[in-house]
């Protein structure tokens, strides 16, 4: 999944290089997808025994995790299941003078709205800023 995330990030970068505002929403969608893939990879690592089950074999108390891994796109719910990841981001942020947990949550919210609700066309300079923020964050999520 991490390889897929890198490939999608590369796709976003190449799309960003066009400088074409008509492609900006595509860049934003792809970088949000990178975050989703990396969070799902972390969930699979943590909840491996649940993630490898077929859907019919999943117990009731495992269903939410399984759905988050394979079916759902609630990035903040994924993050809420990994308090240790958030704590690690917080600790790194305190060393770097940067609020990584908040930045990750900002990106998740931006992707949620842009991907699902907004008919607004983004401009490429805005998409480029998202790209740079995800470039930094994705290294911390691997």
């Amino acid at each position, binding site marked *: 999944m991490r390889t897929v995330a890198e490939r999608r990030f590369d796709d976003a970068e190449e799309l960003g290089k066009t400088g074409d505002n008509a492609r900006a929403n595509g860049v*934003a969608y792809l970088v949000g997808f990178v975050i989703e893939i990396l969070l799902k990879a972390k969930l699979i690592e943590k909840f491996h025994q649940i993630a490898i089950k077929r859907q019919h074999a999943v117990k009731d108390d495992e269903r*939410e995790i399984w759905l988050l891994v394979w079916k759902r796109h609630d*990035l*903040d*719910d994924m*993050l*809420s*299941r990994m308090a240790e990841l*958030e704590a690690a981001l*917080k600790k790194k942020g305190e060393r770097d003078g940067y609020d990584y*947990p*908040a930045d990750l*949550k*900002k990106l*998740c*919210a*931006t992707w*949620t*709205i*842009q991907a699902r*609700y*907004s*008919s*607004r066309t*983004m*401009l490429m300079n*805005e998409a480029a*800023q*998202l790209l740079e*923020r995800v470039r930094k964050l994705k290294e911390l999520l691997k």
Partner: protein
Amino acid sequence: MTQQQAKALADALTQRFGGDAELEPVNDRGRYRFAITSKQFESMTQMQRQDEVWKVADQTMSRDAILDVSMILAFAPADLPTMH
């Protein structure tokens, strides 16, 4: 965070931006997701909106409680579909 703390943030968001703020718990772990709809966001990019709403969260919440802010969705009215 407690429900009281969550409501305090929702109220602070409404006070700052006008409009309507909503909150909902996220998977019963003391985390809350927030959504605020305000005309003030119409002139802002998505990340500008995020930076502004998180300033309010920083001013309102303690360093521990702020980790329980799961997400703050910031909508302009035009973002939301209209039911006919």
